[in-house]
Structures are given as structure tokens and as C-alpha cells.
């Protein structure tokens, strides 16, 4: 295919990605250095209240936003440099917390709290997803052909369920005296409130995520198991490999590219953990980086949205995912170069 036809085929799609992804990214970068604020004016206002003995007048100096001709508040946008970033990261507070050696003080800063949760969520769920996915895949592969279809059907359900509703369905099992909470209470003979402290909520979020993603890993691995070279397996058996050695030295190396693939996808998806915060209504205890940006973007009672701060936290979130993905992408790049040589 020559260059011209190639461009004609990919043109619309690339144009769309430039227009709708790259351009917004550039605006976010720009916005993160600016602050938009209403223009205020200071007025001296005299309010008088009538009383029996005459009027009591109060003079006050008020700052109120100027309202333009069209009835909207006039705003102005100023270049502020890295102020937005400073407002998000809050270095002075973080350093003060370090000086006091106080972890709880450090965790009181929204950004670091969100970063802590997002990273631990990503890194704890990853091995669990791989492990459960592999287990389910091996068991499905081990089962009789006739029951594989129904089992895969049931396994797909947690995967395609709307994330917010999946989280809600777990929440409804535990909330108040939900049946699983009452089961736990009966089992452990003690009072349990799953939504009263951060760590139980985090535990439920991670459980939900593993439940949601393990089927994906399982199905990918199951497909990989179908293509294991039976001759290699047989020769391993003839050479006296135990069942464990067979798994460790024949099957796992064969699945390695798929494990990398699932890792890559899971890193991307669990880093943007967000729906769990909404579904479990955990914002008082646990927040994630995406939720932080979302919260900045949501308009407050006055109808103001802190776009600048949201942009700064978006940029930081993005830097985070790029750092997280560099090792994996480097592997892909080396692989590509190796193939071409």
C-alpha cells in the first residue's frame, strides 16, 4: 500500500484523534497555568434599618463580583505560572507533615491521599487479578467441554456490568445490615460496620475490582491455553516433569505475552479508578486521582468550577500513568526493534 492511500484510509481517524484528544490535552496544559476568576469590586455599602428612635446605619466595605450587561459575572483569566500545581500538591503542608513525622497529617492533603490510594489500589489488585484469572482459566480448561460454555457465560457477567452498578451491587450486600454484613457478624460474633472506616471500604473496592477484572484475565489466558503446544507438554511429561514443573516451565512461559498484555491493560484501567468512589460513596474516607479532578471540576455552591486546579491535577495524573507505563512500553519497543532486525 503506498503512502497516499494509507493516509487516505487513516486520515479521518487521525484527524479526529488530533482534534478531539491532542487538542484538548494542549488546552489542559495551557489551562493549568491560568486562573479564571470573577472580577471583584469593592464598594462601600450603607445599610440602614429603621427603628423607633430613628435609623441605625451601618457602613460596610463589601467585595462583590461585577455583573456584566448580559447578566453574567465578568471573569478574567490571568497567567499564574505554577500556582495551580502548588495549590494541588501543597508542598509546604507536605513538608511540615514530614517534619512532624506525621503520616496522618500528610494524608490530610487531598492530592497525596488520592495518589496513595490510586497507587496501592493498582499495585495490590494487579497480582490478585493475574492469579485469579490464571486459576479460573486453568480450571475451565480442566473441566468437561459441555460445562465450559455456561461457565464462561457466568464469568462474563461481572466483566461487562456497568462499573458504577457493579460497585453498587456489592455495596448493597454490605450496607447497614445487608446480608453479607449480617453473615460476617454472625460468623465473627461482633458488630461490624463496613462503611465506617477507610480500610474496610478500600478492601471492598479492591474486592470489587478483582471480581470485575479477573474474568477478562481468565478468558484471555483460557484462549492462550488452547494454543499450548501439546508436543512440548508431552515431552516434558516423558522427561519426568511433575505437574507443577509442567505449569512452571511449559505453560507459564507460553502465556507470558498474554500476562504482559493483561498487566498493561490492568495498569491503565485500575489507575483510573473512579467508579468505585462513586458507587461506594467513599469520598469522605477514600478518594482517587480521577475523583480529585472530577471534584475540582464539579461546580461549588457559587457555581464556580476550579478549572485551573483541575487542569493541574489532570496533568499530574497523566504524568503518573506515563511513568507507570514506561517499563511496559519499553518492552514493546524492544520487541518491535528485535522483530525488525
Amino acid at each position, binding site marked *: 500500500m503506498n503512502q497516499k492511500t494509507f493516509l487516505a484510509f487513516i486520515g479521518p481517524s487521525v484527524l479526529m484523534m488530533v482534534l*478531539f484528544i491532542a487538542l484538548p490535552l494542549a488546552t*489542559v496544559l495551557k489551562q493549568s497555568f491560568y486562573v479564571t476568576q470573577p472580577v471583584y469590586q469593592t464598594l462601600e455599602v450603607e445599610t440602614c434599618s429603621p427603628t423607633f428612635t430613628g435609623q441605625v446605619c451601618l457602613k460596610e466595605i463589601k467585595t462583590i463580583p461585577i455583573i456584566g450587561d448580559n447578566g453574567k459575572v465578568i471573569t478574567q483569566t490571568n497567567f499564574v505560572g505554577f500556582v495551580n500545581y502548588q495549590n494541588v500538591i501543597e508542598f509546604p503542608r507536605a513538608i511540615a507533615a514530614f517534619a512532624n513525622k506525621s503520616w496522618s497529617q500528610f494524608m490530610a492533603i487531598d492530592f497525596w491521599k488520592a495518589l496513595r490510594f490510586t497507587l496501592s489500589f493498582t499495585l495490590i489488585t494487579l497480582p490478585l487479578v493475574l492469579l485469579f484469572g490464571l486459576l479460573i482459566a486453568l*480450571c475451565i480448561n480442566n473441566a468437561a467441554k459441555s460445562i465450559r460454555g455456561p461457565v464462561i457465560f457466568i*464469568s462474563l457477567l461481572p466483566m461487562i456490568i456497568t462499573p458504577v452498578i457493579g460497585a453498587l451491587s456489592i455495596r448493597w450486600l454490605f450496607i447497614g445490615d445487608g446480608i453479607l454484613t449480617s453473615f460476617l457478624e454472625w460468623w465473627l460474633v461482633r458488630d461490624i460496620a463496613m462503611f465506617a472506616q477507610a480500610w474496610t471500604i478500600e478492601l471492598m473496592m479492591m474486592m470489587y475490582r478483582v471480581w470485575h477484572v479477573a474474568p477478562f484475565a481468565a478468558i484471555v489466558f483460557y484462549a492462550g491455553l488452547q494454543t499450548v503446544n501439546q508436543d512440548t507438554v508431552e515431552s516434558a511429561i516423558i522427561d519426568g516433569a511433575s505437574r507443577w514443573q509442567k505449569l512452571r516451565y511449559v505453560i507459564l512461559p507460553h502465556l507470558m505475552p498474554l500476562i504482559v498484555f493483561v498487566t498493561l491493560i490492568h495498569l491503565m484501567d485500575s489507575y483510573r479508578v473512579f467508579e468505585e468512589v462513586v458507587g461506594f460513596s467513599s469520598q469522605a474516607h477514600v478518594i482517587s486521582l480521577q475523583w480529585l479532578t472530577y471534584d475540582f*471540576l464539579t461546580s461549588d455552591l457559587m457555581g464556580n468550577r476550579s478549572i485551573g486546579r483541575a487542569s493541574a491535577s489532570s496533568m499530574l495524573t497523566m504524568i503518573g500513568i506515563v511513568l507507570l507505563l514506561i517499563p511496559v512500553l519499553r518492552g514493546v519497543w524492544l520487541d518491535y526493534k528485535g522483530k525488525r532486525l
Partner: protein
Amino acid sequence: MKDKNLIQQPIALRLSSYFFLIFWCIVAAFPIFWISVMSVKLPLDAFNSNPLNVIFGMETLSKGKGLSLIDITVGLSIILFTAKLTTGWLGRMVNKYSPNGYLGFGWIIGAMAFGLSFIIIFFGIMPSVLSLFNDISGPLGNNILGFSTEHYSTVWFEMDFIKNFQNSIMVTTGVVTISLTFGTLAGYGLARSGSNLAFWILIIALIFRALPHSVLVTGYLPFFINSAEILRPIFGESAPTLYGMPWATVAVLVAINQPFTIWMLRSFFQSIPSELDEAARVDGCSHFQAFRRVIMPVMWPGVITTGLFSFLLAYNDFLVTSMLLEAQNTTMVPAIASMFNMETTTTDQVVAVAAAVSIIAPLFFLVMFFQRQIVSGLTAGAVKG
């Protein structure tokens, strides 16, 4: 020389493998099963701490709302029969009657007609016929299982959920059509080109795939709010405010979806042998003609699969739609979030449960119809690497 003992697994291993599968199936299905049970019970039953009370719904039953043995058997057999039809018969019918090269549309129309007739029979005709039967059949017709659809009617008729449903339909249809149109062209181009440019586009698409959605929304939101003023020089007075327009969110969702779409379609097109279009080229077709006449008729399985995943992304989205649409006019998923946040009484909670079940019911049928396509889609991207 095969050692029988090594090939045959010990009975303990086989048993534990089956036990694990059973355990997994229960874990996978239980939350979904449970919220469907909760949604048809009155609040006192739905949030009862005794699971048997929830399942049998004593309180609901005492209010005279329930199902008899006849209702349950007939209902279950209709569901099983439908499941059987969807897995076999429907596919054959679609393959037989759709015009050549339009298998995709055939599937869409077939699935829609099928779903609609199921809804009419199951919710429209069946209840009235069954209540007639219950009256004449004595003890078998007595209610034994608490069952009430009142929360569903609250959701759909009193709370205007139909409006949210229409918005969802509009957004998902838009996203699926647009992202597939652009995606197939790009995917085909990328699959047939070995140039360095193609590689870099794919890598950049991969990085875009990793972007948290909130980053994009931050870029869009100020523009959407002020779009009337920004676009005035181009469109004049008719420049629209994009904020709150369901069709405007389509653009955002398509953009989010596009990197994934081209990756997936590329791997599908790679599995179509390039000899096919080369043969057409030898016969004097241009690249576009070869694409239209030779590739398009055979690409539908891949396109349907990719379309399914685009559908899921648009249908399941919460972040983009809740941020860019007004609270009164959202799609279904953000609507439910506002529902459970304002829940005050247990009745409100069960109404929210019913809304949640209404949202995931179509997904359930989707898996039933398209299980094979979903599995092949999950593995296609992966096995190719």
C-alpha cells in the same frame, strides 16, 4: 509410552478444580442475582438480614403480591426457551435472511425484533393469561413467592427514566456508528501498511488509550460551557451551547474510544489474508474498491465485536456524561447516581435497586446473544500481541 498416572489427573485435583469453578460461578453471579431479587421485593423484605426472608419475601407476600407455582414454571420455561432460541435459531435466521454483505445490520434488526417480541410476550401478554389460570387452578394457583413490580413502575413511569433511556440510546448509537466508520478505515489501513508511521500511530494510540478520562473532560468542559461565545464568529447567532447536549458528548466518547477501536480492528484485518485484496487488485480494483467489494463482505464478525465494546464503553460511561450533561437530562448511569445519593427512605433505596437492574438487564441479554463475539474480541487483541 504414556504413563497413565501422569496424564490422568488425581481425583483430588479434579474435584478441587470443580469446586473452585463452582465457587467462582457463585461469586460471579451472586451480587447480580441478589440485586435482581431485591428489586422485586418491598423494602422491609429487600433489606432484611435473613437471606431466606429476602428470597421468599414474606412481607411482600402478605401484601398479596406474589407468584404462584404456575407463574414460576411458565415464566422460567419461557426464559429458558428464549435462551435456547437466541443461541441457535436466531443466528441461523439472521444468516439466512440478511442480504449479502449486510450481516451487521441483520444482527441489529434481528436482535431488536427478538428483544421487542420477548418484552411484549413476557411483560404484556403473560401476566394477564397467568392470572386467569391462577384463579381456576385452586391450590397450585396460591402465591408462594413474594414478587412486586411496583418499584419498576415507579422508576419507569413516575421518575421519567424513559427520558434517560432515550438519551442513552442516542449516545450509544452515535458512538457506535461514528467510531466504527472511522475505525474500520483506519484499522484496515494500519493492518495493510508496514511503515514506521503506522507503528508510531499505534503507539500513540496506545498512550491515548491510557489517558484517564478526567483529563479529557477537563479539556472539554470550559469549551462546552462557553461554546456559544467561542463559536459565534463561525456560526453566528445560532452557535449552540454544547454543555448539556447529549449529542455533543458523543464526540468525546468517540474520541476516548477511537484508540481502542483501531487497535482491535487492526488485529481483525490482519487475520484476513492479504492475498484476498491483492487478488482484487490484480483484477483491476483500486484500494478503495478492493476494500468495498472484497473486504467489506467478510469484515462483519470483527466489526460486530468491536461495535459491542464501543457500545459497552458508551453505555457504561459515568464520568463523561455526568460531567458534560445537566443533572436533569443525563443518560441512565449518572441518573442512578443521583438517585442513590438522595435516598432517604428504604423505599427510595429499593427504587434505586430497580433502576440499577433495569440498566444491566440489556447487558445480560447482550452477553446471551453475543457471548462468542465477546470472547473472540477479548482474545483477538491479545493473542496477536
